[in-house]
Protein backbone atom coordinates (compact mmCIF):
# COMPACT_ATOMS: atom_id res chain seq x y z
CA UNK A 1 0.00 0.00 0.00
CA UNK A 2 1.22 3.45 -0.81
CA UNK A 3 0.96 6.35 1.64
CA UNK A 4 -2.18 7.74 -0.01
CA UNK A 5 -3.87 4.39 0.43
CA UNK A 6 -3.75 3.49 -3.24
CA UNK A 7 -2.08 0.13 -4.04
CA UNK A 8 1.38 0.56 -5.65
CA UNK A 9 0.28 -1.48 -8.62
CA UNK A 10 -2.72 0.78 -9.16
CA UNK A 11 -0.44 3.87 -9.09
CA UNK A 12 1.80 2.24 -11.64
CA UNK A 13 -1.09 1.56 -13.95
CA UNK A 14 -2.55 5.03 -13.46
CA UNK A 15 0.85 6.51 -14.14
CA UNK A 16 1.14 4.61 -17.39
CA UNK A 17 -2.38 5.56 -18.38
CA UNK A 18 -1.76 9.23 -17.60
CA UNK A 19 1.52 9.10 -19.53
CA UNK A 20 -0.08 7.51 -22.58
CA UNK A 21 -3.01 9.94 -22.54
CA UNK A 22 -0.70 12.93 -21.83
CA UNK A 23 -2.73 13.84 -18.75
CA UNK A 24 -1.13 15.76 -15.84
CA UNK A 25 0.24 13.07 -13.60
CA UNK A 26 0.13 15.16 -10.40
CA UNK A 27 -3.64 15.32 -10.81
CA UNK A 28 -4.11 11.68 -11.71
CA UNK A 29 -1.73 10.30 -9.11
CA UNK A 30 -2.22 12.80 -6.27
CA UNK A 31 1.47 13.67 -6.04
CA UNK A 32 2.98 17.12 -5.34
CA UNK A 33 4.22 19.40 -8.08
CA UNK A 34 7.29 21.39 -6.99
CA UNK A 35 8.46 24.29 -9.15
CA UNK A 36 11.66 26.25 -8.51
CA UNK A 37 12.34 29.66 -9.87
CA UNK A 38 16.10 29.91 -9.71
CA UNK A 39 17.11 30.16 -6.09
CA UNK A 40 14.44 32.76 -5.44
CA UNK A 41 11.26 30.81 -5.05
CA UNK A 42 9.87 27.35 -4.53
CA UNK A 43 6.28 26.70 -5.42
CA UNK A 44 4.54 23.60 -4.09
CA UNK A 45 1.17 22.45 -5.37
CA UNK A 46 -0.97 19.82 -3.67
CA UNK A 47 0.55 20.28 -0.22
CA UNK A 48 -0.90 18.93 2.97
CA UNK A 49 0.26 21.60 5.37
CA UNK A 50 3.40 23.17 6.80
CA UNK A 51 5.28 21.11 9.33
CA UNK A 52 7.90 23.65 10.22
CA UNK A 53 8.57 27.24 9.32
CA UNK A 54 11.66 29.19 10.36
CA UNK A 55 13.60 31.81 8.37
CA UNK A 56 16.13 29.12 7.47
CA UNK A 57 13.94 26.12 6.87
CA UNK A 58 10.44 25.32 5.66
CA UNK A 59 9.12 21.78 5.76
CA UNK A 60 5.98 21.00 3.85
CA UNK A 61 4.01 17.81 4.04
CA UNK A 62 2.90 16.32 0.72
CA UNK A 63 1.29 13.02 -0.29
CA UNK A 64 4.71 11.79 -1.44
CA UNK A 65 6.75 12.77 1.59
CA UNK A 66 8.15 15.90 3.18
CA UNK A 67 9.56 18.66 0.99
CA UNK A 68 12.23 20.58 2.89
CA UNK A 69 13.37 23.96 1.64
CA UNK A 70 16.54 25.28 3.29
CA UNK A 71 17.96 28.72 2.80
CA UNK A 72 18.13 32.24 4.21
CA UNK A 73 15.45 34.81 4.99
CA UNK A 74 12.73 32.42 3.95
CA UNK A 75 9.14 33.48 4.12
CA UNK A 76 5.81 32.16 2.94
CA UNK A 77 5.01 34.21 -0.13
CA UNK A 78 1.50 32.86 -0.19
CA UNK A 79 -0.38 29.92 1.14
CA UNK A 80 -3.77 28.56 0.18
CA UNK A 81 -5.67 25.31 0.54
CA UNK A 82 -3.62 23.47 -2.11
CA UNK A 83 -0.60 25.53 -2.99
CA UNK A 84 2.08 27.51 -1.28
CA UNK A 85 5.10 29.54 -2.28
CA UNK A 86 8.32 29.96 -0.34
CA UNK A 87 10.34 33.09 -1.14
CA UNK A 88 13.85 34.01 -0.11
CA UNK A 89 17.32 32.71 -0.85
CA UNK A 90 16.90 28.98 -1.49
CA UNK A 91 19.99 26.83 -0.93
CA UNK A 92 18.55 23.35 -1.02
CA UNK A 93 15.33 21.44 -1.67
CA UNK A 94 14.92 17.90 -0.43
CA UNK A 95 12.14 15.35 -0.61
CA UNK A 96 12.14 12.88 2.21
CA UNK A 97 10.44 9.73 0.96
CA UNK A 98 8.84 8.22 3.94
CA UNK A 99 5.76 8.40 6.03
CA UNK A 100 4.94 12.03 6.61
CA UNK A 101 4.24 12.97 10.20
CA UNK A 102 0.64 13.97 10.73
CA UNK A 103 1.36 16.66 13.25
CA UNK A 104 3.31 19.88 12.87
CA UNK A 105 6.48 20.17 14.89
CA UNK A 106 6.55 22.93 17.40
CA UNK A 107 8.56 25.88 16.15
CA UNK A 108 12.06 26.28 17.51
Amino acid at each position, binding site marked *: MARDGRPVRARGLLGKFAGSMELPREVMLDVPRVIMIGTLQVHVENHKGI*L*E*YTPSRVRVRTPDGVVTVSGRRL*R*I*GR*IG*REELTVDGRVDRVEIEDGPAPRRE*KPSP
Partner: protein
Amino acid sequence: MIERLWRFLHGYVVLKVRGPRLERFLNRAARAGVWLWDVERLGTGMLVARIPAASFRKVRSLSRAQGWRIAIADKVGLPFLLVALARRKALVLGALLSLAALYVASGYVWFVQVEGDEELPVQRVLDVAQLAGLRPGVPRNAVERHEVQRALLLEIDELSWAAVRIDGTRAVIEARLRAGLDPKASLPGDIVAARDGIVQQVMALSGYPMVGEGDTVRRGDVLISGFIPPDDPLHRELLEAGRPPYVRADGIVTARVWYEGRAFVPLIQQVEEPTGDRAWGIEFEWSPVRWRLGGPPRSFAAYRESSRSWQGTVGSQNVGVHWVTYEKVERRTVEISAEEAEETARDAAKAQLEAELPEGAAIVAGPYETVEISLQLGVPAVAVTVRAEVIADVAAFKEIQF
Protein backbone atom coordinates in the same frame (compact mmCIF):
# COMPACT_ATOMS: atom_id res chain seq x y z
CA MET B 1 0.37 43.41 -10.67
CA ILE B 2 -3.23 42.37 -11.28
CA GLU B 3 -3.18 40.42 -8.01
CA ARG B 4 -1.89 43.45 -6.11
CA LEU B 5 -4.60 45.61 -7.66
CA TRP B 6 -7.21 43.03 -6.78
CA ARG B 7 -5.98 42.93 -3.17
CA PHE B 8 -6.00 46.71 -2.98
CA LEU B 9 -9.53 46.94 -4.37
CA HIS B 10 -10.86 44.36 -1.92
CA GLY B 11 -8.81 45.50 1.04
CA TYR B 12 -6.56 43.44 3.27
CA VAL B 13 -5.35 43.44 6.82
CA VAL B 14 -1.87 42.88 8.20
CA LEU B 15 -2.12 40.52 11.16
CA LYS B 16 0.26 39.92 14.02
CA VAL B 17 -0.25 36.44 15.34
CA ARG B 18 1.21 35.26 18.63
CA GLY B 19 1.03 31.87 20.22
CA PRO B 20 2.45 28.34 20.06
CA ARG B 21 2.67 26.19 16.91
CA LEU B 22 2.11 28.93 14.40
CA GLU B 23 2.55 26.50 11.48
CA ARG B 24 -0.69 25.03 12.61
CA PHE B 25 -2.32 28.43 12.46
CA LEU B 26 -1.25 28.79 8.82
CA ASN B 27 -2.51 25.29 7.97
CA ARG B 28 -5.85 25.83 9.67
CA ALA B 29 -6.41 29.12 7.97
CA ALA B 30 -5.42 27.74 4.55
CA ARG B 31 -7.66 24.72 5.02
CA ALA B 32 -10.51 27.07 5.93
CA GLY B 33 -10.14 28.64 2.49
CA VAL B 34 -8.24 31.75 3.54
CA TRP B 35 -5.39 32.98 1.36
CA LEU B 36 -2.44 34.26 3.35
CA TRP B 37 0.53 36.06 1.82
CA ASP B 38 3.80 37.72 2.77
CA VAL B 39 4.02 35.57 5.87
CA GLU B 40 7.09 36.44 7.91
CA ARG B 41 8.33 34.88 11.06
CA LEU B 42 9.40 37.61 13.46
CA GLY B 43 10.30 35.39 16.36
CA THR B 44 9.62 32.06 17.95
CA GLY B 45 6.06 32.79 18.90
CA MET B 46 5.13 35.53 16.48
CA LEU B 47 4.50 35.98 12.79
CA VAL B 48 3.04 38.59 10.51
CA ALA B 49 0.70 37.68 7.68
CA ARG B 50 -1.62 39.43 5.30
CA ILE B 51 -5.14 38.19 4.69
CA PRO B 52 -8.13 39.53 2.72
CA ALA B 53 -10.27 41.85 4.83
CA ALA B 54 -13.29 39.66 4.17
CA SER B 55 -11.60 36.63 5.74
CA PHE B 56 -10.79 38.34 9.01
CA ARG B 57 -13.82 37.06 10.93
CA LYS B 58 -13.09 33.48 9.90
CA VAL B 59 -9.46 33.76 11.01
CA ARG B 60 -10.43 35.40 14.28
CA SER B 61 -12.91 32.70 15.18
CA LEU B 62 -10.48 29.84 14.48
CA SER B 63 -7.65 31.53 16.39
CA ARG B 64 -9.86 32.16 19.40
CA ALA B 65 -10.69 28.49 19.56
CA GLN B 66 -6.99 27.49 19.45
CA GLY B 67 -5.60 30.16 21.73
CA TRP B 68 -3.67 32.26 19.19
CA ARG B 69 -3.76 35.98 19.82
CA ILE B 70 -4.21 38.05 16.75
CA ALA B 71 -3.94 41.80 16.33
CA ILE B 72 -4.46 43.98 13.32
CA ALA B 73 -1.24 45.86 12.54
CA ASP B 74 -2.57 47.69 9.50
CA LYS B 75 -5.56 47.97 7.22
CA VAL B 76 -4.83 48.57 3.57
CA GLY B 77 -7.00 49.02 0.48
CA LEU B 78 -9.84 50.86 -1.09
CA PRO B 79 -12.64 49.89 1.35
CA PHE B 80 -10.63 51.31 4.29
CA LEU B 81 -9.77 54.40 2.27
CA LEU B 82 -13.44 54.94 1.51
CA VAL B 83 -14.36 54.58 5.16
CA ALA B 84 -11.69 57.10 6.11
CA LEU B 85 -12.92 59.49 3.43
CA ALA B 86 -16.53 59.09 4.49
CA ARG B 87 -15.52 60.57 7.84
CA ARG B 88 -14.05 63.64 6.07
CA LYS B 89 -17.05 64.78 4.05
CA ALA B 90 -15.77 68.33 3.50
CA LEU B 91 -12.53 67.03 2.01
CA VAL B 92 -14.38 64.71 -0.34
CA LEU B 93 -16.81 67.45 -1.30
CA GLY B 94 -13.95 69.84 -1.95
CA ALA B 95 -12.12 67.29 -4.06
CA LEU B 96 -15.25 66.51 -6.05
CA LEU B 97 -16.01 70.20 -6.54
CA SER B 98 -12.50 70.96 -7.71
CA LEU B 99 -12.64 68.01 -10.10
CA ALA B 100 -15.97 69.26 -11.41
CA ALA B 101 -14.59 72.80 -11.73
CA LEU B 102 -11.57 71.47 -13.60
CA TYR B 103 -13.80 69.47 -15.89
CA VAL B 104 -16.08 72.40 -16.62
CA ALA B 105 -13.16 74.83 -17.07
CA SER B 106 -11.46 72.47 -19.48
CA GLY B 107 -14.46 72.84 -21.79
CA TYR B 108 -13.63 76.49 -22.48
CA VAL B 109 -11.00 78.34 -24.47
CA TRP B 110 -8.94 80.43 -22.05
CA PHE B 111 -6.10 81.58 -24.25
CA VAL B 112 -6.02 82.70 -27.87
CA GLN B 113 -2.60 82.87 -29.49
CA VAL B 114 -1.47 83.98 -32.91
CA GLU B 115 1.45 82.22 -34.53
CA GLY B 116 3.08 82.78 -37.87
CA ASP B 117 5.00 85.54 -39.62
CA GLU B 118 6.55 88.25 -37.49
CA GLU B 119 4.80 91.02 -39.39
CA LEU B 120 1.34 89.56 -38.79
CA PRO B 121 -1.17 92.19 -37.63
CA VAL B 122 -1.76 90.23 -34.42
CA GLN B 123 -4.28 92.60 -32.88
CA ARG B 124 -6.35 92.65 -36.06
CA VAL B 125 -6.26 88.88 -36.32
CA LEU B 126 -7.49 88.65 -32.72
CA ASP B 127 -10.21 91.24 -33.36
CA VAL B 128 -11.50 89.42 -36.44
CA ALA B 129 -11.35 86.09 -34.62
CA GLN B 130 -13.31 87.60 -31.75
CA LEU B 131 -16.03 88.82 -34.12
CA ALA B 132 -16.15 85.33 -35.63
CA GLY B 133 -16.68 83.85 -32.16
CA LEU B 134 -13.19 82.91 -31.00
CA ARG B 135 -12.17 84.70 -27.82
CA PRO B 136 -11.09 83.69 -24.33
CA GLY B 137 -14.05 82.37 -22.38
CA VAL B 138 -16.05 80.74 -25.17
CA PRO B 139 -16.97 77.04 -24.89
CA ARG B 140 -14.58 74.94 -26.94
CA ASN B 141 -17.29 73.20 -28.88
CA ALA B 142 -18.91 76.55 -29.78
CA VAL B 143 -15.86 77.58 -31.79
CA GLU B 144 -16.59 77.21 -35.49
CA ARG B 145 -13.02 76.78 -36.66
CA HIS B 146 -13.83 76.98 -40.35
CA GLU B 147 -15.94 80.10 -39.82
CA VAL B 148 -13.06 81.79 -38.04
CA GLN B 149 -10.64 80.80 -40.80
CA ARG B 150 -13.00 82.11 -43.46
CA ALA B 151 -13.55 85.37 -41.59
CA LEU B 152 -9.80 85.87 -41.21
CA LEU B 153 -9.14 85.34 -44.91
CA LEU B 154 -12.07 87.54 -45.99
CA GLU B 155 -11.39 90.40 -43.61
CA ILE B 156 -7.61 90.56 -43.72
CA ASP B 157 -6.43 90.86 -47.31
CA GLU B 158 -2.78 90.42 -46.41
CA LEU B 159 -3.36 86.84 -45.26
CA SER B 160 -2.77 84.03 -47.69
CA TRP B 161 -3.57 81.21 -45.29
CA ALA B 162 -5.06 80.81 -41.82
CA ALA B 163 -5.85 77.85 -39.62
CA VAL B 164 -7.31 77.49 -36.16
CA ARG B 165 -6.49 74.62 -33.88
CA ILE B 166 -7.56 74.05 -30.31
CA ASP B 167 -5.05 72.51 -27.91
CA GLY B 168 -6.82 71.91 -24.64
CA THR B 169 -7.88 75.30 -23.34
CA ARG B 170 -5.65 77.15 -25.80
CA ALA B 171 -6.72 78.20 -29.27
CA VAL B 172 -3.90 78.80 -31.72
CA ILE B 173 -4.45 80.83 -34.87
CA GLU B 174 -1.77 80.13 -37.41
CA ALA B 175 -1.59 82.55 -40.30
CA ARG B 176 0.73 83.41 -43.16
CA LEU B 177 1.06 86.69 -45.01
CA ARG B 178 0.94 86.85 -48.77
CA ALA B 179 4.41 86.53 -50.14
CA GLY B 180 5.80 88.86 -52.81
CA LEU B 181 3.54 91.39 -54.43
CA ASP B 182 1.53 93.92 -52.55
CA PRO B 183 -2.09 93.09 -53.42
CA LYS B 184 -2.62 96.73 -54.32
CA ALA B 185 -0.09 96.29 -57.10
CA SER B 186 -2.69 94.44 -59.16
CA LEU B 187 -5.43 97.09 -59.02
CA PRO B 188 -6.29 98.67 -62.41
CA GLY B 189 -5.32 102.25 -63.13
CA ASP B 190 -3.68 104.79 -65.43
CA ILE B 191 -0.22 106.21 -65.73
CA VAL B 192 -0.45 110.00 -65.30
CA ALA B 193 2.09 112.77 -65.47
CA ALA B 194 3.81 113.54 -62.19
CA ARG B 195 5.00 116.98 -63.51
CA ASP B 196 4.46 119.43 -66.34
CA GLY B 197 6.76 118.77 -69.28
CA ILE B 198 7.35 117.91 -72.93
CA VAL B 199 7.12 114.19 -73.66
CA GLN B 200 10.23 112.71 -75.10
CA GLN B 201 9.64 108.98 -75.09
CA VAL B 202 6.70 106.71 -74.26
CA MET B 203 7.15 103.00 -73.55
CA ALA B 204 3.87 101.36 -72.62
CA LEU B 205 4.34 97.94 -71.01
CA SER B 206 0.62 97.59 -70.44
CA GLY B 207 -2.33 99.82 -71.36
CA TYR B 208 -2.87 102.30 -74.17
CA PRO B 209 -0.46 105.27 -74.69
CA MET B 210 -2.41 108.54 -74.87
CA VAL B 211 0.50 110.90 -75.69
CA GLY B 212 3.34 110.93 -78.15
CA GLU B 213 6.78 112.46 -78.46
CA GLY B 214 6.77 116.24 -78.36
CA ASP B 215 3.36 116.56 -76.65
CA THR B 216 3.15 119.04 -73.84
CA VAL B 217 1.55 117.56 -70.77
CA ARG B 218 0.39 119.06 -67.53
CA ARG B 219 0.60 117.42 -64.18
CA GLY B 220 -2.21 114.84 -63.78
CA ASP B 221 -2.75 114.27 -67.54
CA VAL B 222 -3.23 110.60 -68.48
CA LEU B 223 -0.14 109.34 -70.29
CA ILE B 224 -0.94 105.62 -70.56
CA SER B 225 -4.56 104.63 -70.09
CA GLY B 226 -5.60 101.49 -68.25
CA PHE B 227 -8.93 101.43 -70.12
CA ILE B 228 -9.09 98.82 -72.90
CA PRO B 229 -11.09 100.25 -75.82
CA PRO B 230 -14.07 98.21 -77.13
CA ASP B 231 -12.33 97.34 -80.40
CA ASP B 232 -9.62 95.41 -78.56
CA PRO B 233 -10.45 91.67 -78.14
CA LEU B 234 -9.20 91.91 -74.53
CA HIS B 235 -12.10 94.26 -73.80
CA ARG B 236 -14.60 91.49 -74.55
CA GLU B 237 -12.57 88.86 -72.75
CA LEU B 238 -12.50 90.91 -69.59
CA LEU B 239 -16.23 91.62 -69.75
CA GLU B 240 -16.99 87.93 -70.28
CA ALA B 241 -14.86 87.10 -67.25
CA GLY B 242 -17.12 89.46 -65.27
CA ARG B 243 -14.43 92.08 -64.82
CA PRO B 244 -14.37 95.74 -65.90
CA PRO B 245 -12.40 96.46 -69.10
CA TYR B 246 -9.45 97.96 -67.27
CA VAL B 247 -5.88 96.82 -66.77
CA ARG B 248 -3.13 98.15 -64.65
CA ALA B 249 -1.29 100.52 -66.97
CA ASP B 250 2.47 100.34 -66.74
CA GLY B 251 5.32 101.88 -68.63
CA ILE B 252 8.01 104.53 -68.76
CA VAL B 253 7.33 108.06 -69.99
CA THR B 254 10.30 110.38 -70.08
CA ALA B 255 9.83 114.09 -70.55
CA ARG B 256 11.78 117.35 -70.48
CA VAL B 257 10.75 118.96 -67.27
CA TRP B 258 11.80 122.06 -65.42
CA TYR B 259 12.95 122.04 -61.84
CA GLU B 260 13.57 125.19 -59.89
CA GLY B 261 14.97 126.36 -56.61
CA ARG B 262 14.15 129.80 -55.20
CA ALA B 263 15.41 131.75 -52.19
CA PHE B 264 14.90 135.24 -50.70
CA VAL B 265 17.36 137.11 -48.56
CA PRO B 266 16.04 140.38 -47.00
CA LEU B 267 18.48 143.28 -47.11
CA ILE B 268 17.40 144.46 -43.67
CA GLN B 269 17.43 141.67 -41.12
CA GLN B 270 16.61 141.44 -37.47
CA VAL B 271 19.08 139.60 -35.32
CA GLU B 272 18.67 138.44 -31.74
CA GLU B 273 21.61 138.69 -29.39
CA PRO B 274 21.47 137.03 -25.98
CA THR B 275 22.18 139.41 -23.11
CA GLY B 276 23.15 136.68 -20.71
CA ASP B 277 20.12 137.17 -18.45
CA ARG B 278 18.21 133.99 -17.75
CA ALA B 279 15.11 132.97 -15.84
CA TRP B 280 13.52 129.59 -15.14
CA GLY B 281 10.05 128.25 -14.80
CA ILE B 282 8.39 124.87 -14.24
CA GLU B 283 5.17 123.79 -15.89
CA PHE B 284 2.91 120.97 -14.79
CA GLU B 285 0.71 119.47 -17.43
CA TRP B 286 -2.50 117.52 -16.94
CA SER B 287 -4.04 117.74 -20.37
CA PRO B 288 -5.52 120.04 -21.48
CA VAL B 289 -4.49 122.27 -18.53
CA ARG B 290 -1.01 123.60 -17.75
CA TRP B 291 0.09 125.34 -14.54
CA ARG B 292 3.24 127.36 -14.48
CA LEU B 293 5.51 128.31 -11.59
CA GLY B 294 8.06 131.04 -12.27
CA GLY B 295 8.47 132.31 -15.82
CA PRO B 296 10.06 135.20 -17.70
CA PRO B 297 10.20 138.47 -15.72
CA ARG B 298 8.54 141.60 -17.13
CA SER B 299 11.95 143.06 -17.86
CA PHE B 300 12.43 140.43 -20.60
CA ALA B 301 11.01 142.29 -23.62
CA ALA B 302 12.20 139.55 -25.91
CA TYR B 303 13.43 136.10 -24.96
CA ARG B 304 14.06 132.64 -26.30
CA GLU B 305 12.82 129.67 -24.45
CA SER B 306 13.96 126.09 -24.32
CA SER B 307 12.66 123.28 -22.18
CA ARG B 308 13.39 119.81 -20.91
CA SER B 309 10.30 117.67 -20.45
CA TRP B 310 9.06 114.50 -18.90
CA GLN B 311 5.76 113.24 -20.30
CA GLY B 312 3.58 110.22 -19.77
CA THR B 313 -0.01 109.07 -19.78
CA VAL B 314 -2.37 108.21 -16.95
CA GLY B 315 -5.37 106.42 -18.41
CA SER B 316 -6.31 108.57 -21.39
CA GLN B 317 -4.77 111.76 -19.92
CA ASN B 318 -1.40 113.18 -20.80
CA VAL B 319 0.65 114.29 -17.85
CA GLY B 320 4.00 116.00 -17.86
CA VAL B 321 6.53 118.24 -16.16
CA HIS B 322 8.40 120.82 -18.20
CA TRP B 323 11.51 122.67 -16.99
CA VAL B 324 11.72 125.85 -19.04
CA THR B 325 14.72 128.16 -19.45
CA TYR B 326 14.12 131.75 -20.65
CA GLU B 327 17.01 133.59 -22.19
CA LYS B 328 16.71 137.34 -22.61
CA VAL B 329 17.67 138.60 -26.05
CA GLU B 330 18.05 142.02 -27.64
CA ARG B 331 16.75 142.51 -31.11
CA ARG B 332 18.40 144.86 -33.49
CA THR B 333 18.28 145.37 -37.22
CA VAL B 334 21.29 145.01 -39.47
CA GLU B 335 21.66 145.94 -43.08
CA ILE B 336 23.50 143.60 -45.40
CA SER B 337 24.92 144.43 -48.80
CA ALA B 338 23.10 143.40 -52.00
CA GLU B 339 26.07 141.26 -53.13
CA GLU B 340 26.22 139.40 -49.85
CA ALA B 341 22.47 138.81 -49.93
CA GLU B 342 22.61 137.61 -53.55
CA GLU B 343 25.39 135.17 -52.75
CA THR B 344 23.49 133.72 -49.81
CA ALA B 345 20.28 133.49 -51.84
CA ARG B 346 22.06 131.82 -54.75
CA ASP B 347 23.55 129.14 -52.52
CA ALA B 348 20.19 128.47 -50.92
CA ALA B 349 18.38 128.31 -54.30
CA LYS B 350 20.96 125.90 -55.73
CA ALA B 351 20.73 123.68 -52.71
CA GLN B 352 16.96 123.63 -53.07
CA LEU B 353 17.18 122.75 -56.77
CA GLU B 354 19.56 119.90 -56.08
CA ALA B 355 17.24 118.56 -53.45
CA GLU B 356 14.33 118.69 -55.89
CA LEU B 357 16.05 116.92 -58.77
CA PRO B 358 15.26 113.22 -59.08
CA GLU B 359 18.22 110.95 -58.57
CA GLY B 360 20.24 110.34 -61.69
CA ALA B 361 18.35 112.92 -63.77
CA ALA B 362 20.40 114.31 -66.64
CA ILE B 363 20.41 118.09 -66.89
CA VAL B 364 19.86 119.01 -70.53
CA ALA B 365 19.68 122.78 -70.16
CA GLY B 366 20.70 125.21 -67.48
CA PRO B 367 20.92 125.85 -64.69
CA TYR B 368 19.68 129.36 -65.43
CA GLU B 369 19.62 132.06 -62.77
CA THR B 370 17.28 134.97 -62.30
CA VAL B 371 18.13 137.60 -59.74
CA GLU B 372 15.55 140.22 -58.75
CA ILE B 373 15.02 142.66 -55.97
CA SER B 374 11.54 142.80 -54.59
CA LEU B 375 9.66 143.79 -51.48
CA GLN B 376 8.95 140.94 -49.10
CA LEU B 377 6.51 141.99 -46.35
CA GLY B 378 7.56 145.60 -46.89
CA VAL B 379 11.29 144.83 -46.67
CA PRO B 380 13.55 144.93 -49.72
CA ALA B 381 14.95 141.48 -50.48
CA VAL B 382 17.10 139.77 -53.10
CA ALA B 383 15.35 136.80 -54.72
CA VAL B 384 17.35 134.26 -56.70
CA THR B 385 15.68 131.58 -58.83
CA VAL B 386 17.72 128.75 -60.33
CA ARG B 387 16.07 126.63 -63.05
CA ALA B 388 17.26 123.52 -64.84
CA GLU B 389 15.71 121.41 -67.56
CA VAL B 390 16.16 117.68 -67.13
CA ILE B 391 14.93 114.49 -68.75
CA ALA B 392 13.12 112.45 -66.13
CA ASP B 393 10.54 109.71 -65.84
CA VAL B 394 7.27 111.44 -65.16
CA ALA B 395 5.09 108.30 -65.04
CA ALA B 396 3.00 108.02 -61.89
CA PHE B 397 0.37 105.37 -61.24
CA LYS B 398 -3.13 106.46 -60.43
CA GLU B 399 -5.72 103.89 -59.39
CA ILE B 400 -9.04 104.01 -61.26
CA GLN B 401 -11.88 104.95 -58.97
CA PHE B 402 -15.00 103.11 -60.06
